[in-house]
Every structure is written in C-alpha cells, then in structure tokens.
C-alpha cells in the first residue's frame, strides 16, 4: 500500500493512501470532534462538525470523509475552523429539544459534551423548531424526534448492520424526520426491537421504554414477592454505569445491589441458560438422530426471533422450539419455585435484568403465559438497573459481593458464555458431546466459535458423527447464513444466531458507549467468568439435575413442552396498510 506524507497542525505524518484526515490526525494524537461519524458504518460527512482547513481548498473540508493527499497541509484548530464548528453545533441546538437535566442521556450525550467542549454559552439562533409527537408505541423503544439531530446513524445501523431498515429519512430539508414510512408508529413496523439504534444515537432521541416505575411499585408493595433474574451479559457491563472499565466482572456486587433495592429473591438467568442447553441440546440430538428440520437454529435472542418472523418466515421450522432463558425462567419461577417455597404464584412479581431491549417485547408476547400468569412481569435493561441503583443512592464500590439465592442461582461456565457470540453454540456442544459420546470432553473450550468475525463455522466430531455448525451475530450477518440455508447450501446441522453484534454483551440495553473496543472487553470478561466457574457444563449443574428429578422429568418431556417450549408467528415484511386514526 502506497504511503502518503502530509502535515497536520505543522506536524508531519505518514499514512496509507486512502486514509481520511480524521484517522491521520488520530495517529498524531490530534482529536477532531465528530458527531455523525461512526467508524466503518456511517461515514457521510453530514454534520460538518469535523471540518478542517486544507491549504488550497476553497472551503473547509469534512475530515471524516476527506482522504489525505501527498503534501497536504491541514489545520484543525484555526479561528475559522472553530467558528464554523461552533456555528454548526449552535444551529443543531437551535432545533433541538434541549431539556438536558431531565433527559435520559444527561451527562452521557454527544451533543451535550460537544457543546460543552466548544464553550457554547448562549444560543444565538432562536428560529423555528420542528415539533413532532414522541412515539412510544413500541414495547421496547421510544423515539423522540424532537431530540433527533438527523445524523442518520440509527438508519445506517438498522440498514447495514441489522438488515432491517424500519426507519429512514422521510421528507425534505427542515421537515425531515427520521422514522418509519408514512408516519407509522415504530411498534407497527418490522422493527425487531434490537435497540442497536439506541446505542449509536448521539442524543436522547432513541431510548428504551421505561420499566423502572412499575418495578419500583412492585418493590414497594408488601404483598408482592419480587424475584429478579440477571442475564449473563449484565455482569460484565453494569459496572460501566458506575464508571468501572468495560468488562469488569461485578456479579456479586450486582446481586448485593439488587437486594438493597428491596428484591426478595435474586436468581441468575444463567440457571435458565443451563436449562436451555438441556432442552436445546436434546432437541438437536433428537433432530439429528430421529429426523427433524435441519439445520436447527437457536432461539434465545428475541430480536432475532422477530427478524425471522418478518423476513424469513419460511425458515421458522428450523428454529429451535426452546424459549429463551428469560422466558424459561419466568415459567419455572411461577410454577416449580412457587410450589417449592409455598408461594402463591399470583403474588410473585418477576423482573429480569437484560442487556436487551427486545426482551421487553418478548415478555409481553401473548404466548409467554405458560405458568397461567404473565411469566416475566418486567424486563429492565442493564442501563435501567444502573439508573435504579443511583436513584436508590447505592454506592456500588462499597457494596460487598453476595451470592445468588438458592436453588435457582446455581449455574455453570456454559451458561455465562451465553453472553458472547458463539457462547450458546459452545455450551450446547459441551453438553451434546458428552451426552452423545458418553465420554468426558478432553477440553471444554471450542475456540473456533469464539470471536467477533461476522460468520464463524466449525465442525465437531461426536464419536464418528460430524456436526457442522455456524455462528452469526448482527442480523445482516444472519442474512448471509439464512440465504444459504434457503438456497440449500451451507450444509450445517446447527446454527447460532444473535441479533446484536458481539452477542448479548453488545445488546441494545447495555451501557452507552457500546463500541467495538467495549464489546471486546466485555467478551474477555465473559470468558474469564467461565474459567472461574467450578462447573462448566450445563448438564452437570446440580440444581438443574434436581429440577428434572423433582419437577420436569426429562428434557423434552411433557412438562418441558408445556413450560419451556413455544411457537412462532409468521409476520411478513410488507405489512398491510391500516387505516390510521385521524390526527
């Protein structure tokens, strides 16, 4: 690759041809502010915050899209540059619903910190404002167009990373709104509730539907027995809401904190992940040995489930019929657990803490009532739990580390890796291998299915039977795999799909920022947590063994089918137009 020499702010630098000014400046440690830029995903030069002076150029250039040239002389910090950037941000602010102290993104907002770093102390432009209704039709995601700065990052992530494109720019100029077609409500569209748009939104224009109010109410109700479950990926991310480095494992403190909120019982979703492996592993073995639709595809990720229902309904028979761990747990808590401790299931209020916004939609699905009640009453995101802890005045650092409650707090390393892409596959293989071969795995790690490559493939020898597997994360990657399945190519037996890039650790409910570097750190945390576990295979979890003995019978048995398995709804991707209520 040819190298190009240039100077930025008087400093010489040499970079590969094709590099943008922005990245060349980074190499020198020169920070150029950006607002719409999202590396590799959204490089449009739309917001004009990153403008710089290039000697000989007629106008200021957007550093994020302008490639370097030999001998280029760039200045990033001149009065003209500062003035232009400032005017741009002021103009954005002039049409922004500025209510920072009460905004969900207060103190974690890119627009706010940009205005702060530029020293903007007044708003010179008091012109017209666009006013649009807040859309809270979705069970998972709220859109507030009045805080939208039209950067289009959400559109790019929805289209390119997730292959959904439920939202886009509609209208022109000042009238432009980023939203669904025809002014539809997000809840009525093909949106899969993954929440990746929330993670990339620089402001508070997209955020999760709040469930904290109802959880506070349940916690305050003396007649309610409040049971929490916490997903694998939350323990390596919650610390970030208190300023800890990404990937810090805070399991014990999280349990202690939830008890301080007033929860009666704190269980671990990891238990249900082990249960999922028992059911799904046996389902796979059954499909392999007795015949059934192959490849079988995992069903833990509710964003993925809605995606296949909309875009690949013909492949629904390939989906495992297993509910997600969240929902298996809900059904078990309001039956087995209630019976075991002699509680009226109707008095149990069950809260999940999830790295996910789609879980909010999942727990409201009409089929998720197999206990006879709503199996999971509320799904909080990791961010929401962080907010509740702060509201309660909890000083995270000073908390002791406490264990989960028994018996549904016991789990294995196989369960915790559910949080990372490839984890469900690896956990399933650990169990399937031992169940099929009746031998002990020489080495529990399946490295081939780990890591951030978009589509991973591997082949495992189960005593002479070759099992070919694929793992995809991010729904655009899933599409690549599904198109092959549709075309009869690929030749896989088992596929893991997670809606979010990186798997659940990169879920739409995780602390912001969630970027590539943060995802990697959380994945490291997940595998460290796995290594620290004494038991690392789901079928060896003593509480799981007891659950089958005392209550369920056997995997795929009658009771399992009643409580732990589900059905899906073909939805289609071009939804019929409905007559809308008059405004």
């Amino acid at each position, binding site marked *: 690759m040819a190298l190009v020499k240039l100077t930025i702010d008087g400093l010489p630098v040499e970079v590969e041809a094709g590099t943008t000014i922005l990245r060349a400046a980074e190499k020198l440690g020169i920070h150029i502010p950006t607002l719409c830029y999202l590396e590799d995903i959204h490089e449009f030069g739309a917001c004009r915050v990153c403008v710089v002076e290039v000697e000989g150029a007629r106008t200021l250039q957007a550093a994020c899209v302008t490639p370097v040239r030999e001998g280029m002389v760039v200045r990033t910090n001149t009065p003209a540059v500062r003035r232009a950037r400032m005017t741009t941000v002021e103009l954005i602010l002039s049409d922004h619903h500025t209510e920072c102290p009460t905004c969900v993104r207060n103190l974690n907002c890119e627009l706010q910190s940009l205005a702060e770093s530029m020293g903007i102390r007044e708003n010179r432009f008091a012109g017209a404002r666009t006013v649009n209704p807040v859309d809270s039709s979705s069970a998972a995601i709220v859109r507030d167009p009045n805080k939208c700065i039209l950067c289009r990052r959400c559109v790019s992530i929805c289209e390119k990373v997730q292959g959904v*494109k439920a939202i886009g720019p509609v209208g022109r100029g000042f009238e432009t709104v980023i939203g669904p077609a025809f002014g539809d409500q997000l809840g009525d569209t093909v949106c899969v509730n993954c929440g990746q748009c929330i993670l990339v939104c620089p402001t508070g224009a997209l955020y999760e539907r709040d469930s904290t109010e109802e959880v506070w109410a349940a916690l305050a109700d003396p007649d309610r027995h409040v049971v929490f479950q916490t997903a694998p990926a939350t323990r390596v991310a919650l610390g970030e809401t208190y300023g800890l480095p990404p990937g810090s494992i805070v399991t014990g403190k999280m349990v202690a904190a939830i008890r301080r909120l007033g929860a009666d019982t704190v269980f671990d979703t990891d238990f249900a992940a082990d249960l999922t492996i028992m059911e799904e592993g046996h389902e796979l073995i059954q499909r392999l040995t007795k015949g059934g639709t192959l490849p079988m595809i995992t069903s833990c990720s509710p964003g993925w489930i809605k995606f296949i229902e909309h875009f690949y309904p013909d492949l629904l028979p390939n989906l495992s019929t297993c509910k997600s761990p969240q929902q298996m747990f809900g059904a078990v808590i309001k039956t087995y657990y209630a019976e075991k401790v002699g509680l009226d299931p109707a008095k149990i209020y069950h809260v999940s803490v999830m790295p996910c916004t789609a879980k909010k939609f999942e727990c409201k699905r009409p089929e998720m009532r197999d206990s006879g009640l709503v199996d999971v009453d509320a799904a909080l995101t990791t961010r929401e739990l962080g907010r509740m802890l702060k509201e309660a005045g909890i000083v995270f650092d000073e908390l002791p580390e406490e264990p989960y409650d028994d018996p549904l707090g016991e789990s294995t390393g196989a369960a915790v890796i559910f949080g990372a892409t490839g984890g469900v596959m690896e956990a399933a293989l650990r169990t399937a291998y031992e169940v099929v071969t009746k031998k002990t795995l020489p080495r529990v790690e399946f490295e081939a299915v780990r890591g951030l490559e978009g589509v991973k493939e591997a082949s495992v020898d189960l005593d002479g039977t070759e099992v070919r597997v694929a793992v995809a994360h991010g729904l655009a990657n899933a599409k690549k795999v599904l198109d092959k399945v549709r075309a009869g190519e690929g030749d896989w037996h088992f596929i893991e799909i997670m809606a979010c890039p990186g798997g659940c650790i990169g879920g739409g409910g995780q602390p912001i920022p969630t970027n590539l570097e943060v995802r990697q750190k959380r994945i490291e945390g997940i595998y460290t947590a796995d290594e620290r576990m004494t038991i690392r295979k789901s079928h060896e979890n003593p509480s799981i063994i007891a659950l089958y003995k005392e209550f369920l019978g056997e995997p795929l048995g009658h009771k399992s089918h009643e409580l732990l398995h589900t059905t899906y709804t073909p939805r289609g991707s071009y939804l019929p137009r409905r007559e809308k209520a008059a405004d």
Partner: protein
Amino acid sequence: MTGADALCSEAARPKIVPGEPLPEDVAETIDRIVDRYDAEPGSLINILHEIQEDVGYLPEEVLSRVAERLGVPVVDVHGVVSFYALFSMKPKGRNRIATCNGTACYVRGAQRVLERLESELGVKAGDTTDDGEFSLDVVRCLGACGLGPVVMINDDVHARLKPDRVPAVLARYRRSG
C-alpha cells in the same frame, strides 16, 4: 392527456381506500410498470413517475406494493416520494391550481397571491381541499414572466393576478349550487 380527459378518467377511476386492498386494476398497473423495469430497485424514480401518471397520485397502499415488488424497505420508497416535490401522495383536485413563484412573479407579489389562495382554500401549497375540488401547487416558472404574477387553473392562464381578485376567480371554478 388534456385537462378534460383527466377529468373524465378520474371519475371512472376506482377509488383507493386507505386500509383496504388495492383495486385490481391499480395493482395490475403497478405490476405492469414494475415488470417493464425488471423490478430493478435502481429504477424506483422512473417507476414512481409512471405510476403517478397513470394512477394520478401515490398513496401509501401504492407505495407499499411498489416496495414489495422491488424488494426494498417501505421507508426507502416513502423517503424518495416525500423528498421530490413532483410526487404527490394525495389525489389532485378536480381543479388544479399552479401558482408561479419564479423570480419575475415573485418580485411582483406572487407570495401574497399564494397566501390568499391558501387562506381561501384552507390548504397549504402541495395539498388538496377535503372536498377534492382544488389542489394547490407552487411551480417555478410558467414561461409567462411578463404577465406575472401568473396562476394557472387547469388550462386557463390568469395573468397579473391580484390577491383581492382570488375569491372571484375561484368562484368561477366551483360547482354551482
């Protein structure tokens, strides 16, 4: 197509009702045009253009079918239609008003004429009155700069129109009784 032809065909045209399936012949028209472009997403603008010529306007139901036939997200199709002023999602009125806002007309007070038209009709430019009698559009130049401000209603040219004359002019096009 002349104004009179448009009027006749409009009466015969099956109505597209929001929330109901497209009338069969409209669906066939869409399919025929899409097929002629090999359902190529890159031909979206041409396709929309031809459908609008034929159907008269581009309501949600039409755009949804176009999106489905091209295999592109619905919001992409709506995004294009809402971006270009030449596309209309509402049917045009029985009388089509085109008010010129080109430079010459503008400096001679076209803006005040437009404002009067808007207030008399109770609609903004680009819209159609609820009774379907009038649609109001702004155009850039009608090539009659010496006669500005110019307003065209159907095929009639109204030259040097003053805001105060607007009600009387409109009355001539209203159905009597």
